[in-house]
Protein backbone atom coordinates (compact mmCIF):
# COMPACT_ATOMS: atom_id res chain seq x y z
CA UNK A 1 0.00 0.00 0.00
CA UNK A 2 2.63 2.47 1.09
CA UNK A 3 4.80 1.38 -1.79
CA UNK A 4 2.22 2.31 -4.38
CA UNK A 5 1.71 5.68 -2.74
CA UNK A 6 5.41 6.39 -2.90
CA UNK A 7 5.50 5.44 -6.56
CA UNK A 8 2.61 7.65 -7.56
CA UNK A 9 4.16 10.46 -5.58
CA UNK A 10 7.39 10.01 -7.44
CA UNK A 11 5.65 10.07 -10.80
CA UNK A 12 3.75 13.19 -9.95
CA UNK A 13 7.04 14.83 -9.15
CA UNK A 14 8.75 13.99 -12.42
CA UNK A 15 6.12 15.71 -14.46
CA UNK A 16 6.23 13.45 -17.61
CA UNK A 17 3.06 13.97 -19.64
CA UNK A 18 2.32 10.41 -20.84
CA UNK A 19 3.20 8.66 -17.64
CA UNK A 20 -0.07 8.86 -15.65
CA UNK A 21 -2.08 6.61 -17.98
CA UNK A 22 0.61 3.92 -18.11
CA UNK A 23 1.11 4.14 -14.38
CA UNK A 24 -2.57 3.70 -13.65
CA UNK A 25 -2.63 0.60 -15.84
CA UNK A 26 0.32 -0.99 -14.06
CA UNK A 27 -1.19 0.17 -10.80
CA UNK A 28 -4.40 -1.63 -11.65
CA UNK A 29 -2.46 -4.77 -12.45
CA UNK A 30 -0.56 -4.42 -9.24
CA UNK A 31 -3.77 -3.92 -7.28
CA UNK A 32 -5.18 -7.12 -8.79
CA UNK A 33 -2.00 -9.04 -8.01
CA UNK A 34 -2.17 -7.78 -4.45
CA UNK A 35 -5.74 -9.04 -4.06
CA UNK A 36 -4.86 -12.42 -5.55
CA UNK A 37 -1.87 -12.63 -3.26
CA UNK A 38 -3.94 -11.78 -0.21
CA UNK A 39 -6.58 -14.31 -1.23
CA UNK A 40 -4.08 -17.11 -1.82
CA UNK A 41 -2.31 -16.39 1.45
CA UNK A 42 -5.65 -16.33 3.25
CA UNK A 43 -6.74 -19.67 1.85
CA UNK A 44 -3.33 -21.19 2.46
CA UNK A 45 -3.29 -19.79 5.96
CA UNK A 46 -6.70 -21.22 6.74
CA UNK A 47 -5.69 -24.61 5.39
CA UNK A 48 -2.61 -24.54 7.62
CA UNK A 49 -4.44 -23.22 10.64
CA UNK A 50 -7.11 -25.88 10.50
CA UNK A 51 -4.90 -28.82 11.53
CA UNK A 52 -2.98 -26.65 14.01
CA UNK A 53 -6.10 -25.49 15.81
CA UNK A 54 -7.66 -28.96 15.75
CA UNK A 55 -4.44 -30.32 17.20
CA UNK A 56 -4.40 -27.75 19.97
CA UNK A 57 -8.02 -28.19 21.01
CA UNK A 58 -7.81 -31.96 20.50
CA UNK A 59 -7.87 -32.75 24.20
CA UNK A 60 -11.20 -30.98 24.52
CA UNK A 61 -12.80 -32.56 21.48
CA UNK A 62 -11.59 -36.13 21.83
CA UNK A 63 -13.94 -38.29 23.88
CA UNK A 64 -12.48 -40.66 26.42
CA UNK A 65 -14.69 -43.31 27.91
CA UNK A 66 -14.09 -44.95 31.20
CA UNK A 67 -13.15 -48.61 31.32
CA UNK A 68 -13.89 -51.25 33.94
CA UNK A 69 -10.82 -51.72 36.12
CA UNK A 70 -10.19 -54.63 38.42
CA UNK A 71 -9.43 -53.52 41.99
CA UNK A 72 -8.77 -57.04 43.25
CA UNK A 73 -10.63 -59.70 45.14
CA UNK A 74 -13.66 -58.59 47.12
CA UNK A 75 -12.16 -60.46 50.06
CA UNK A 76 -9.48 -57.80 50.37
CA UNK A 77 -12.19 -55.32 51.34
CA UNK A 78 -13.61 -56.49 54.67
CA UNK A 79 -17.18 -55.65 55.46
CA UNK A 80 -17.69 -52.51 57.49
CA UNK A 81 -14.31 -51.11 56.58
CA UNK A 82 -12.93 -48.57 54.18
CA UNK A 83 -9.70 -49.48 52.48
CA UNK A 84 -7.19 -47.79 50.23
CA UNK A 85 -6.88 -49.24 46.73
CA UNK A 86 -4.73 -48.32 43.76
CA UNK A 87 -4.91 -49.11 40.08
CA UNK A 88 -3.22 -48.10 36.85
CA UNK A 89 -5.38 -45.66 34.99
CA UNK A 90 -6.86 -47.40 31.92
CA UNK A 91 -6.60 -44.10 30.03
CA UNK A 92 -2.87 -43.71 30.04
CA UNK A 93 -0.02 -43.26 27.64
CA UNK A 94 3.61 -44.37 27.79
CA UNK A 95 4.98 -41.05 29.02
CA UNK A 96 2.68 -40.80 32.04
CA UNK A 97 5.07 -42.56 34.40
CA UNK A 98 3.95 -42.61 38.00
CA UNK A 99 1.16 -40.16 37.30
CA UNK A 100 -0.87 -42.95 35.69
CA UNK A 101 -1.21 -44.57 39.09
CA UNK A 102 -4.53 -43.77 40.67
CA UNK A 103 -5.89 -44.27 44.14
CA UNK A 104 -9.38 -44.63 45.53
CA UNK A 105 -11.13 -45.46 48.77
CA UNK A 106 -13.25 -48.61 48.80
CA UNK A 107 -15.93 -48.86 51.44
CA UNK A 108 -17.50 -52.26 51.89
CA UNK A 109 -20.83 -51.55 53.56
CA UNK A 110 -21.66 -55.23 53.88
CA UNK A 111 -20.69 -58.25 51.82
CA UNK A 112 -21.40 -57.41 48.18
CA UNK A 113 -22.32 -53.80 48.86
CA UNK A 114 -19.66 -51.21 48.05
CA UNK A 115 -19.02 -47.54 47.68
CA UNK A 116 -15.88 -46.51 45.81
CA UNK A 117 -14.77 -42.92 46.31
CA UNK A 118 -12.36 -40.89 44.24
CA UNK A 119 -9.34 -39.75 46.18
CA UNK A 120 -9.94 -36.17 45.07
CA UNK A 121 -11.64 -33.74 47.39
CA UNK A 122 -14.74 -32.26 45.77
CA UNK A 123 -13.47 -28.81 46.71
CA UNK A 124 -10.20 -28.45 44.80
CA UNK A 125 -9.08 -31.99 44.13
CA UNK A 126 -6.54 -32.62 46.90
CA UNK A 127 -6.18 -36.21 48.11
CA UNK A 128 -8.51 -36.97 51.02
CA UNK A 129 -7.43 -39.39 53.74
CA UNK A 130 -9.64 -41.84 55.57
CA UNK A 131 -9.63 -41.96 59.34
CA UNK A 132 -11.07 -45.25 60.48
CA UNK A 133 -11.23 -44.12 64.13
CA UNK A 134 -13.52 -41.15 63.60
CA UNK A 135 -15.04 -42.57 60.40
CA UNK A 136 -14.24 -39.40 58.52
CA UNK A 137 -12.41 -38.42 55.36
CA UNK A 138 -10.28 -35.31 55.81
CA UNK A 139 -8.60 -33.18 53.17
CA UNK A 140 -5.16 -31.70 53.94
CA UNK A 141 -5.61 -28.62 51.75
CA UNK A 142 -8.57 -26.60 52.96
CA UNK A 143 -10.04 -28.86 55.59
CA UNK A 144 -12.93 -30.49 53.75
CA UNK A 145 -14.42 -33.32 55.85
CA UNK A 146 -16.73 -36.13 54.70
CA UNK A 147 -18.62 -38.86 56.51
CA UNK A 148 -17.98 -42.52 55.76
CA UNK A 149 -20.72 -42.59 53.09
CA UNK A 150 -18.91 -39.79 51.26
CA UNK A 151 -21.42 -37.08 52.16
CA UNK A 152 -20.07 -33.68 53.07
CA UNK A 153 -19.54 -33.21 56.81
CA UNK A 154 -17.75 -29.87 57.10
CA UNK A 155 -15.50 -27.43 55.33
CA UNK A 156 -15.63 -25.82 51.92
CA UNK A 157 -16.55 -28.73 49.59
CA UNK A 158 -19.75 -27.93 47.69
CA UNK A 159 -20.81 -31.60 47.58
CA UNK A 160 -19.87 -35.08 48.71
CA UNK A 161 -16.98 -37.16 47.41
CA UNK A 162 -17.04 -38.29 43.77
CA UNK A 163 -17.98 -41.96 43.41
CA UNK A 164 -17.02 -44.56 40.85
CA UNK A 165 -19.61 -46.97 39.51
CA UNK A 166 -18.75 -50.49 40.65
CA UNK A 167 -19.72 -54.07 39.98
CA UNK A 168 -18.68 -57.48 41.24
CA UNK A 169 -17.68 -60.05 38.64
CA UNK A 170 -16.94 -63.46 40.06
CA UNK A 171 -14.75 -62.64 43.02
CA UNK A 172 -13.41 -59.37 41.68
CA UNK A 173 -14.47 -55.81 42.40
CA UNK A 174 -14.50 -53.68 39.27
CA UNK A 175 -14.89 -49.92 38.99
CA UNK A 176 -15.65 -47.75 36.01
CA UNK A 177 -12.60 -45.51 35.99
CA UNK A 178 -10.38 -43.42 33.79
CA UNK A 179 -11.15 -39.73 33.58
CA UNK A 180 -10.19 -37.51 36.48
CA UNK A 181 -13.44 -37.30 38.43
CA UNK A 182 -15.18 -34.03 37.85
CA UNK A 183 -18.49 -32.29 37.98
CA UNK A 184 -19.66 -33.43 34.55
CA UNK A 185 -20.21 -37.12 35.03
CA UNK A 186 -21.14 -37.48 38.66
CA UNK A 187 -24.37 -36.77 40.41
Amino acid at each position, binding site marked *: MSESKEKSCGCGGCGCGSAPAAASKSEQRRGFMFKVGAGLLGVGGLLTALPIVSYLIGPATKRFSNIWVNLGATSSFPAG*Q*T*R*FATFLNPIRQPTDGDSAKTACWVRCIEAGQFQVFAINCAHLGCPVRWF*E*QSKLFMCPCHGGVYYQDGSRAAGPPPRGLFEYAWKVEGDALLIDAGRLPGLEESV
Partner: protein
Amino acid sequence: MNSRLLLASLITWLSGCERPGGPHAVQPVAHDSLAWTQSAFNTNCRGCHSQGAEGAALPLMNANYWAVATDAVVIEAIAHGQGRSMPAYLADEGGPFTSAQIVSLVQGMRSLWGAKDGATGGESVAISPRVIAGDAGAGAAVFSQACAGCHGPQGSAGSVIDPLYLRLISNQGLWSATVYGRSELGMPAWNQAMPNRPTGLTAQEVADVVGWISAQRPKQQRVSDAP
Protein backbone atom coordinates in the same frame (compact mmCIF):
# COMPACT_ATOMS: atom_id res chain seq x y z
CA MET B 1 48.02 -15.43 48.65
CA ASN B 2 45.21 -14.31 50.83
CA SER B 3 42.90 -13.71 47.91
CA ARG B 4 43.72 -17.14 46.53
CA LEU B 5 42.80 -18.72 49.83
CA LEU B 6 39.58 -16.78 49.83
CA LEU B 7 38.78 -17.91 46.32
CA ALA B 8 39.59 -21.50 47.18
CA SER B 9 37.34 -21.45 50.20
CA LEU B 10 34.59 -19.79 48.18
CA ILE B 11 34.79 -22.53 45.59
CA THR B 12 34.75 -25.25 48.21
CA TRP B 13 31.77 -23.59 49.79
CA LEU B 14 29.95 -23.27 46.49
CA SER B 15 30.64 -26.78 45.35
CA GLY B 16 30.22 -28.61 48.56
CA CYS B 17 28.35 -29.54 51.58
CA GLU B 18 27.48 -28.23 55.03
CA ARG B 19 24.68 -26.02 53.76
CA PRO B 20 20.91 -26.37 53.81
CA GLY B 21 21.04 -26.29 50.01
CA GLY B 22 23.51 -28.04 47.83
CA PRO B 23 23.42 -31.41 46.23
CA HIS B 24 22.17 -34.29 48.27
CA ALA B 25 20.75 -37.51 46.99
CA VAL B 26 17.34 -38.55 48.21
CA GLN B 27 17.97 -41.53 50.39
CA PRO B 28 15.12 -43.47 51.88
CA VAL B 29 15.62 -44.22 55.56
CA ALA B 30 15.94 -47.96 56.10
CA HIS B 31 13.15 -49.18 58.30
CA ASP B 32 15.52 -51.02 60.61
CA SER B 33 17.39 -47.87 61.62
CA LEU B 34 16.75 -46.17 64.94
CA ALA B 35 16.14 -42.92 63.08
CA TRP B 36 13.28 -44.60 61.28
CA THR B 37 11.93 -45.97 64.56
CA GLN B 38 12.04 -42.56 66.18
CA SER B 39 10.27 -40.86 63.31
CA ALA B 40 7.68 -43.63 62.88
CA PHE B 41 7.01 -43.48 66.61
CA ASN B 42 6.74 -39.69 66.62
CA THR B 43 4.26 -39.72 63.76
CA ASN B 44 2.14 -42.70 64.67
CA CYS B 45 2.39 -43.45 68.38
CA ARG B 46 3.47 -40.46 70.39
CA GLY B 47 0.05 -38.84 70.37
CA CYS B 48 -1.03 -41.29 73.07
CA HIS B 49 2.13 -43.09 74.22
CA SER B 50 4.73 -40.62 75.32
CA GLN B 51 6.78 -40.17 78.45
CA GLY B 52 6.36 -38.90 81.98
CA ALA B 53 2.96 -37.38 82.60
CA GLU B 54 2.61 -36.52 78.91
CA GLY B 55 0.18 -38.52 76.80
CA ALA B 56 -3.05 -40.10 77.90
CA ALA B 57 -2.18 -43.76 77.36
CA LEU B 58 0.74 -45.89 78.58
CA PRO B 59 4.08 -44.08 78.21
CA LEU B 60 6.34 -46.16 76.00
CA MET B 61 9.42 -43.92 76.21
CA ASN B 62 9.94 -45.54 79.57
CA ALA B 63 12.36 -48.26 80.69
CA ASN B 64 9.88 -49.69 83.21
CA TYR B 65 7.52 -50.57 80.42
CA TRP B 66 10.15 -52.34 78.38
CA ALA B 67 11.41 -54.23 81.43
CA VAL B 68 8.06 -55.96 81.68
CA ALA B 69 6.59 -56.07 78.18
CA THR B 70 7.74 -58.81 75.83
CA ASP B 71 8.21 -58.15 72.14
CA ALA B 72 5.46 -60.58 71.23
CA VAL B 73 2.87 -58.77 73.37
CA VAL B 74 3.80 -55.35 71.95
CA ILE B 75 3.92 -56.60 68.36
CA GLU B 76 0.50 -58.11 68.70
CA ALA B 77 -0.95 -54.94 70.20
CA ILE B 78 0.47 -52.79 67.42
CA ALA B 79 -0.48 -55.14 64.61
CA HIS B 80 -4.05 -55.89 65.59
CA GLY B 81 -4.92 -53.06 67.93
CA GLN B 82 -5.99 -53.31 71.50
CA GLY B 83 -9.27 -52.62 73.21
CA ARG B 84 -11.33 -49.81 71.81
CA SER B 85 -8.80 -47.01 71.54
CA MET B 86 -5.72 -48.61 70.07
CA PRO B 87 -6.14 -49.05 66.32
CA ALA B 88 -4.57 -51.85 64.29
CA TYR B 89 -1.41 -50.67 62.55
CA LEU B 90 -0.89 -53.65 60.26
CA ALA B 91 -1.36 -52.79 56.59
CA ASP B 92 -3.65 -55.79 56.08
CA GLU B 93 -5.95 -54.33 58.70
CA GLY B 94 -5.97 -50.83 57.28
CA GLY B 95 -2.91 -49.52 59.10
CA PRO B 96 0.31 -47.98 57.80
CA PHE B 97 2.92 -50.70 58.60
CA THR B 98 3.98 -54.05 57.15
CA SER B 99 4.58 -56.80 59.68
CA ALA B 100 8.34 -56.50 59.15
CA GLN B 101 8.14 -52.81 59.94
CA ILE B 102 6.21 -53.50 63.14
CA VAL B 103 8.89 -55.96 64.28
CA SER B 104 11.61 -53.37 63.54
CA LEU B 105 9.61 -50.71 65.31
CA VAL B 106 9.30 -52.79 68.48
CA GLN B 107 12.95 -53.80 68.44
CA GLY B 108 13.94 -50.19 67.77
CA MET B 109 11.81 -48.90 70.64
CA ARG B 110 13.35 -51.45 72.97
CA SER B 111 16.86 -50.36 72.07
CA LEU B 112 15.90 -46.70 72.35
CA TRP B 113 14.11 -46.83 75.67
CA GLY B 114 14.56 -50.29 77.14
CA ALA B 115 16.99 -51.18 79.91
CA LYS B 116 20.53 -50.84 78.67
CA ASP B 117 21.45 -54.30 79.94
CA GLY B 118 19.37 -55.69 77.12
CA ALA B 119 16.70 -57.27 79.31
CA THR B 120 13.94 -58.37 76.99
CA GLY B 121 11.11 -58.22 79.44
CA GLY B 122 9.14 -61.30 80.19
CA GLU B 123 8.90 -61.27 83.95
CA SER B 124 6.06 -63.53 84.87
CA VAL B 125 3.72 -60.61 85.37
CA ALA B 126 4.02 -59.76 81.69
CA ILE B 127 1.88 -62.68 80.80
CA SER B 128 -1.51 -61.26 80.05
CA PRO B 129 -4.64 -62.14 82.04
CA ARG B 130 -5.73 -64.34 79.19
CA VAL B 131 -3.06 -66.75 80.42
CA ILE B 132 -3.17 -66.36 84.19
CA ALA B 133 -6.75 -66.91 85.21
CA GLY B 134 -7.75 -64.37 87.80
CA ASP B 135 -10.00 -65.20 90.73
CA ALA B 136 -12.54 -62.42 91.04
CA GLY B 137 -13.35 -63.37 94.61
CA ALA B 138 -9.74 -63.08 95.70
CA GLY B 139 -9.47 -59.94 93.60
CA ALA B 140 -12.22 -58.25 95.60
CA ALA B 141 -10.14 -58.50 98.73
CA VAL B 142 -7.01 -57.24 97.00
CA PHE B 143 -8.95 -54.36 95.51
CA SER B 144 -10.46 -53.20 98.76
CA GLN B 145 -7.09 -53.41 100.43
CA ALA B 146 -4.70 -51.98 97.83
CA CYS B 147 -6.79 -50.00 95.34
CA ALA B 148 -10.06 -48.83 96.85
CA GLY B 149 -8.42 -46.06 98.84
CA CYS B 150 -7.93 -44.09 95.65
CA HIS B 151 -10.09 -45.89 93.11
CA GLY B 152 -13.17 -46.99 95.02
CA PRO B 153 -16.54 -45.40 94.47
CA GLN B 154 -15.59 -42.68 96.97
CA GLY B 155 -11.92 -42.67 96.04
CA SER B 156 -10.02 -39.47 95.42
CA ALA B 157 -8.50 -40.57 92.11
CA GLY B 158 -11.77 -41.54 90.48
CA SER B 159 -13.58 -44.82 90.29
CA VAL B 160 -12.30 -47.64 88.11
CA ILE B 161 -15.60 -49.44 88.36
CA ASP B 162 -17.49 -46.61 86.69
CA PRO B 163 -19.53 -48.58 84.12
CA LEU B 164 -18.69 -46.03 81.41
CA TYR B 165 -14.99 -46.50 82.07
CA LEU B 166 -15.38 -50.26 82.02
CA ARG B 167 -17.10 -50.04 78.65
CA LEU B 168 -14.07 -48.35 77.20
CA ILE B 169 -11.24 -50.42 78.61
CA SER B 170 -10.31 -53.99 77.77
CA ASN B 171 -9.08 -56.55 80.27
CA GLN B 172 -5.66 -56.13 78.74
CA GLY B 173 -5.95 -52.40 79.33
CA LEU B 174 -6.94 -52.92 82.96
CA TRP B 175 -4.05 -55.29 83.37
CA SER B 176 -1.57 -52.85 81.78
CA ALA B 177 -2.81 -50.01 83.97
CA THR B 178 -2.37 -52.18 87.08
CA VAL B 179 1.06 -53.47 86.13
CA TYR B 180 2.72 -50.34 84.76
CA GLY B 181 0.88 -47.66 86.70
CA ARG B 182 1.54 -43.99 85.97
CA SER B 183 4.01 -43.03 88.68
CA GLU B 184 4.21 -39.40 87.46
CA LEU B 185 0.45 -39.14 87.93
CA GLY B 186 0.51 -40.79 91.35
CA MET B 187 -0.46 -44.32 90.33
CA PRO B 188 2.19 -46.82 91.43
CA ALA B 189 3.35 -49.73 89.29
CA TRP B 190 2.39 -53.24 90.42
CA ASN B 191 5.62 -53.82 92.35
CA GLN B 192 5.75 -50.39 93.99
CA ALA B 193 4.38 -49.49 97.40
CA MET B 194 0.60 -49.04 97.61
CA PRO B 195 -1.67 -48.24 100.52
CA ASN B 196 -1.46 -51.23 102.87
CA ARG B 197 0.91 -52.95 100.43
CA PRO B 198 4.49 -51.78 100.97
CA THR B 199 5.84 -54.23 98.38
CA GLY B 200 3.07 -54.00 95.83
CA LEU B 201 1.21 -56.97 94.32
CA THR B 202 2.15 -60.42 93.11
CA ALA B 203 1.48 -61.51 89.53
CA GLN B 204 -1.45 -63.62 90.71
CA GLU B 205 -2.90 -60.72 92.64
CA VAL B 206 -2.72 -58.55 89.53
CA ALA B 207 -4.69 -61.17 87.64
CA ASP B 208 -7.19 -61.48 90.49
CA VAL B 209 -7.82 -57.78 90.79
CA VAL B 210 -8.21 -57.40 87.02
CA GLY B 211 -10.63 -60.31 87.12
CA TRP B 212 -12.67 -58.62 89.84
CA ILE B 213 -12.76 -55.23 88.12
CA SER B 214 -13.74 -56.93 84.89
CA ALA B 215 -16.55 -58.69 86.72
CA GLN B 216 -17.99 -55.27 87.59
CA ARG B 217 -18.79 -54.58 83.95
CA PRO B 218 -22.49 -54.06 83.28
CA LYS B 219 -24.08 -57.45 82.49
CA GLN B 220 -24.91 -56.90 78.81
CA GLN B 221 -21.25 -56.22 78.05
CA ARG B 222 -19.69 -59.21 79.65
CA VAL B 223 -20.23 -61.55 76.76
CA SER B 224 -18.27 -59.46 74.35
CA ASP B 225 -15.85 -58.55 77.13
CA ALA B 226 -13.72 -55.85 75.62
CA PRO B 227 -14.35 -55.46 71.96
